[in-house]
């Protein structure tokens, strides 16, 4: 990818240099050739439509070539290949938090394998941030309240700068980190080391802890849709529209369930806005995704004590509801406070 961007970039540098030198050279030549001493009398020339058309048409042609070329690159930059591994990212003032599907969590350091496609699914807990790795020539803003994504394919193991590129407050220039690109075998060892369960399995715990399984049951009797096999497929809504069940749809359905009701179901699900941390939502998304591709199953709808807790989730961010370890939906508690007002 960096190669494609650089190729276009240097083509543009050549184009810009050509026109800059053309204009400068002409100005310089005219200024010397037609200076008053040599050219005491100006010749009035009112213009030339032919010339105007030429110097409108040629630049137009050039920029259209650039447009097509850059759009092709842009398509590659924004369309992750199928089967890319996924890393979930939460930006907050002023750190980057990463969650790997294998279960690893890290802050301001992102381990990825070389030679594989990596898709970042990102959201922010507070203001807008921007995920920027100059070496990969990619950048994508990270917004509160929604998922954005980007992807890259690192080729060479090493350590690369990671910057926040959207101004986010006091420590904006401190919201930096490193992307550590490892040999695939090393990465697999790293990803397997010292985790007690995948991201989907922690999502499954959240799913049970908040009583989601009471309604979203594995049989047809649930008050909510059976979530097995849903992710990645079209969902018919009660107003006749169809949406694809992607990360954003799952997220919206958790935090704003009334926005898009699946056909055949009632708008009875309470919102979990303010009750789940972004990390918990990500766990749930990963779990629903795993249900979608058959790598996980819906649990039997029976409450069981929740044993797993979040190893890296800072205490201050966990909502009040989090300590509620029963399987019933937690009573609505005070909404989470803006993290930045600390």
């Amino acid at each position: 990818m960096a190669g494609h961007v650089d190729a276009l970039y240097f083509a543009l540098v050549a184009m810009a240099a050509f026109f800059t030198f053309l204009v400068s050279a002409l100005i310089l030549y005219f200024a010397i050739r037609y200076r008053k001493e040599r050219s005491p009398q100006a010749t009035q020339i009112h213009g030339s439509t032919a010339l105007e058309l030429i110097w409108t048409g040629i630049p137009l042609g050039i920029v259209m070539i650039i447009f097509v070329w850059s759009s092709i690159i842009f398509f590659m930059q924004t369309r992750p290949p199928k089967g890319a591994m996924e890393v979930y990212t939460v930006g907050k003032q002023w750190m980057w938090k990463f969650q790997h599907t294998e279960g690893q969590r890290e802050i301001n350091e992102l381990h990825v394998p070389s030679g594989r496609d990596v898709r970042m699914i990102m959201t922010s807990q507070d203001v807008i941030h921007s995920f920027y790795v100059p070496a990969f020539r990619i950048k994508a803003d990270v917004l509160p309240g929604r998922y954005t994504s980007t992807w890259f394919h690192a080729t060479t193991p090493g350590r690369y700068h990671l910057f926040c590129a959207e101004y986010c407050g006091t420590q904006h220039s401190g919201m930096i980190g490193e992307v550590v690109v490892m040999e695939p075998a090393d990465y697999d060892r790293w990803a397997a080391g010292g985790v007690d369960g995948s991201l989907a399995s922690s999502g499954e715990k959240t799913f049970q802890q908040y009583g989601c399984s009471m309604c979203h049951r594995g049989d047809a009797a649930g008050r909510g849709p059976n979530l097995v096999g849903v992710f990645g497929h079209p969902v018919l809504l009660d107003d006749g529209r169809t949406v694809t069940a992607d990360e954003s749809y799952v997220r919206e359905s958790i935090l704003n369930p009334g926005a898009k009701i699946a056909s055949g179901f009632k708008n009875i699900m309470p919102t979990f806005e303010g009750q789940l941390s972004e990390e918990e939502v990500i766990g749930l998304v990963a779990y629903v995704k795993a249900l979608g591709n058959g790598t996980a199953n819906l649990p039997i709808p029976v409450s069981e004590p929740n044993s797993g807790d979040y190893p890296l989730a800072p205490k201050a961010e966990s909502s009040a509801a989090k300590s509620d370890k029963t399987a019933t939906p937690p009573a609505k508690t005070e909404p989470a406070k803006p993290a930045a007002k600390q």
Partner: protein
Amino acid sequence: METAIQNTEPKKKNYLNADYGVMSWLLTTDHKRIALLYLGSITLFFFLGGFFAMLIRLELLTPAGDLVLSDTYNKLFTMHGVVMIFLFLIPSIPAVFGNFLVPMMIGAKDLAFPKLNLASWYLYMAGAGFIMYAILTGGLDTGWTFYTPYSTTYSNTNVVSAAIGVFIVGFSSIFTGLNIMVTVHRMRAPGLTWQRLPLFIWAHYATSVIMVLGTPVLAITIVLVALERIFHFGIFDARLGGDPLLFQHLFWFYSHPAVYIMILPSMAVISEVIACFSRKRPFGYNFIAMSSVAIAVLGFLVWAHHMFVAGISTYAAMIFSLLTFFVAIPSAVKVFNWTATLYKGSITFETPMLYAFAFIGLFTIGGLTGVFLGAVGIDLHVTDTYFVVAHFHYVMVGGGVTGFLCALHFWWPKMTGKMYPESFAKLSAVLVFLGFNLTFFPQFLLGYMGMPRRYHAYPPEFQVLNVLSTAGASILAVGFLLPMIYLAWSLRYGKDAGPNPYRAAGLEWQTVSPPTTFNFEETPVVTWEAYNYDEIDGTTKGVEVAG
């Protein structure tokens, strides 16, 4: 300023000595005096913004954030942007030279609404007052772009006061735009058809359209920011149910056209100056005039190119990329036409012409690097880096400020009746050109290497280029300070300019310098085409020169 003029034993009444005393200035409705009020105010704010810029450049001499705290640094770049954009660049040429010259160029006594014109200056000062209040009560740290939800929920600075200031200043700009539009429509001298208008007028007309149509959107946006910040209405903050991208759409819907508010008037100046010092009618008059109008129209259709990485859809990004490439064309047409104007001219190299050359070179680089940013595939890498910083400084300083200095030198004799010292002026033009390039060219490289903008501290591999940039900034500062000194000097000691020291075409040169309060002894009747340099230089009819 006026005292110096008064001391030079006025032989004739002109607009400067027609009345004396503070009130004669504060209550004036003379467009020329209001232009001078604006000139004084924006010069003050230019140096204030420049002071912030110097502190930014000094901080960036070293990779560590060691000169000021990061909060202070964030306030410095915010205040630099707010002051330079809202208090200097947007009013600069339209409110000073547009104000002064539009009536004179079309043979009118004043603008259509003289009192509205004065009100515009008072609104400007009131808005500036609110912005200064925000700066003095702890500063502002949102960036000049006021991005939400940072500005509405997270910033601890005086956002509301600054927002009120920007809101009010916006109305001064609407008033100026309205005034210029109506004046151009209704008050042209007999015989002065649209096809005979100086290109300066065409570009100012286009600028005024943008001011009148675009600025209300900024005003609404700013009000919404204030509502969300004060009353927590959920408009832009996702937590409250709002949409942070909505802010960016609204903000750039004004702020992209605002870039053309800053550059079109400079283009207006360059068209006049190139014509005068090559003694020729500009090549392709119609194309230059229509390209101004095209820029004003297309400029409204490209705002989301500031948002390619912000989370807009792939297809939206591509459409805005395409439209962005279209808007590059009229600017290119202008550059080619100015260059062609030189062909078979009779060129001299007075200071305004040097600035015009500098403008074409710097604006060409600024415009071409805009093509880089319009290419989405490149933009993803270089947006929000120093590449963007370099690009818009090439346009706004290399284009906007250079055009302002060009205008200041070109019409200084008309405004004051005095000539500036030519050799000092040439020296400062060269310093500005060299200092500017040394300051901002390295930033293109920094951006491509990946240095993000608005960074208080940066990785050490970026230091060399940052040192070069800071060195350039100190040369640039000298280049900007010199004119202050020699122009002030010229007020007392400068040679008398006479009505038309450059033998320039244009009605403004056919009256005395400085002009009388009502500009012309009698309303001129125009029987010639604009830029009749063949007639002025004595081959044909010849033009009456009054005074």
